[in-house]
């Protein structure tokens, strides 16, 4: 099979509110990530940050098909998945700013955002780190006889690692309620996917494990939603995992600051028309006025402005926090873990100093 764009047919009436919701979500992700990019470059966000600009239809489409109690596991490129699953922008931005009110208390950062209150099992600094988490969460749902499903988001590059293969097989033989969502953006950092695999469609790997697969236009949020919805229903019915390959493209660099020597500007330009927001707006046509469209942006921008103000106002984590959190009990000095944390803090405390704020342009 080759990558074909679905024709942008006019929407049925019944689809309009869904399409609007998807558009709103994609705009929120876009505004969030453009904001992250600005504030990273301004030196306010430490560490690494990877943007999913251009790929928002996958996060929006899949998560729209999920319930709050379903699970997702994300990648290093996880802002979109996390927002679409339902996290509060405030807690995420505060985390990226390394603040105490961040969703991970400032210990995770962009590469490690997580929100367990909505079943978001974490972004991951290790490529293919999510497969096992999803297989396990799906297994738990099965053992507890809930009808929850677990979704693994991952990149094309991740499918060359062992955990992809081992967990797909496991999910298949145990008929797990899992959904494997590949965001095939044709690059794994600087390397074109065609150089690291002999196949055009990664979905055929799923065939090898007996998992039904679908290839969808990853710029089409509705197409992604329909594919995910069908797979989720299958999983809830106990019929096992599905693999969805979303053909997409990463418009920004691999990380913020990437010099992008591995592709031409022209190549990136050529994907302008694939913008999932532009595509869905066009599809909504006259059912969405220009003013309404601008309102969607305006709402998202105010949401980001509010999150930014929240993050900036949030305190730095207390230094003692560095020594606590790895173990249950380590906040209680009466436990072995807590007693050791007290000793560790005391050993380092005389040397606590002011730390200069975030640097920019880390190589990654």
């Amino acid at each position, binding site marked *: 099979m080759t990558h074909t764009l679905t024709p942008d047919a006019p929407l049925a009436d019944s689809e309009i509110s869904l399409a609007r919701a998807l558009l709103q979500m994609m705009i929120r992700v876009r505004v969030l990530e453009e904001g992250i990019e600005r504030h990273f470059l301004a030196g306010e966000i430490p*560490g690494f940050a990877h943007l999913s600009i251009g790929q928002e239809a996958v996060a929006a489409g899949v998560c729209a098909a999920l319930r709050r109690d379903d699970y997702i596991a994300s990648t290093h490129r996880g802002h979109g998945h996390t927002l679409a699953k339902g996290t509060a922008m405030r807690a995420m931005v505060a985390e990226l700013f390394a603040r105490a009110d961040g969703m991970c208390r400032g*210990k995770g*950062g962009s590469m490690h955002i997580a929100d367990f209150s909505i079943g978001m099992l974490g972004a991951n600094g*290790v490529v293919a780190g999510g497969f096992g988490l999803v297989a396990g969460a799906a297994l738990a749902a099965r053992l507890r006889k809930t009808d929850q499903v677990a979704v693994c988001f991952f990149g094309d590059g991740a499918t060359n690692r062992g955990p992809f293969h081992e967990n797909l097989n496991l999910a298949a033989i145990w008929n797990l309620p899992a959904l494997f969502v590949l965001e095939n953006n044709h690059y794994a950092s600087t390397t074109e996917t065609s150089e690291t695999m002999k196949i055009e469609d990664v979905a055929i790997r799923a065939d090898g494990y007996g998992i039904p697969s679908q290839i969808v236009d990853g710029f089409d949020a509705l197409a992604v939603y329909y594919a995910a919805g069908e797979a989720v229903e299958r999983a809830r019915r106990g019929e096992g995992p599905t693999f969805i390959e979303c053909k997409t493209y990463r418009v920004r660099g691999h990380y913020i600051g990437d010099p992008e020597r591995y592709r031409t500007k022209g190549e990136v330009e050529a994907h302008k028309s694939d913008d999932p927001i532009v595509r869905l707006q066009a599809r909504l046509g006259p059912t969405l006025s220009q003013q309404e469209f601008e309102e969607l942006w305006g709402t998202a921008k105010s949401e980001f402005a509010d999150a930014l103000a929240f993050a900036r106002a949030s305190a730095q984590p207390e*230094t003692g926090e560095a020594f606590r959190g790895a173990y249950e009990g380590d906040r209680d000095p009466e436990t072995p873990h807590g007693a050791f944390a007290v000793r*560790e803090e005391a050993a380092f405390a005389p*040397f606590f100093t002011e*730390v200069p704020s975030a640097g920019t342009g*880390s190589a990654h």
Partner: protein
Amino acid sequence: MARTISFTEATLEAMREEMRRDPMVFLMGEDIAKQGGIFGQFKGLPDEFGIERVRDTPISEAALVGAGVGAALAGMRPVVDMHFADFITCSMDELVNQAAKLRYMFGEQCTVPLTLRAPDGITKSAGAQHSQSLENWFVHTPGLEVVIPANARDAKGLLKSAIRSNNPTLYFEHKALFPRKGEVPDDEDFLIPIGKAETMREGGDAAIITYGITVGRALEAAETLERDERIAVRVVNLRSVWPLDYAAIADAVAATHRVVVAHEAVRVGGVGGEIAAFIAEHCFDDLDAPVIRLGAAHVPVPFAPVLQEAMYPKAPAIAAACRDLVRKVR
């Protein structure tokens, strides 16, 4: 003659010279050929050696290390780049059960001349999964050599020795060292023998036994102590953490009677514990005070800069430890 070059450039020279010298040497890693490595540490090598010998790979760490072991068994000298040392975890079987064991288990029928380059350490809020120093795991695994350069000179001399070694060798290079400049000898046969420490600075009041990026922090501490408090501190750069230069450790104890062992890796269960135990067992009579071990706190590396900077030892902590030891007996 010597020149001043960056740590990165020193590693490039080492690889260039060894690849010219021995056609069996080849390189594998993610984003190393076309991009030149994430820290530029492979830049330009494909121009001279071609992409057969400088190979870009899929994200398949288990295959890279596994195939590295296989190629080594078949007579090649692979150098495998781990991208970040943290991803060694993805190839632990290949390293621990295969590379480390084969020579011994197969009665010396084979050798595994494999080198792993593994950028490690805490820098720039890279977070828990991109900041670790894991050398102690491999010191604890019989059959592996572990070398850790502290500066450009070490970088070149140790990498060349690692590539020439017939044993599987892990070469941990701290990410923050790559841009740092230092003097490197011109001699193409300049090698740093594996298992030999270097005394970087003399001093009779205390000794800091250390390696890797912490050597620079120890030197800074020693300079401050000398200047401000007339405390003279010897600084021993181990360069190899396996094999350890036990003789140099014993000498340092005999010469100073007070020892601080320091590294950036987690202190609990770390290499410093092995060194302190060796001193307790073999140099007890030379000691005037208990050995002090310094290392990172027993927690994953946190993201927030304030937290990250609070949990591993830098020059002030090292200086304070020396000061404590000296006060104890003055």
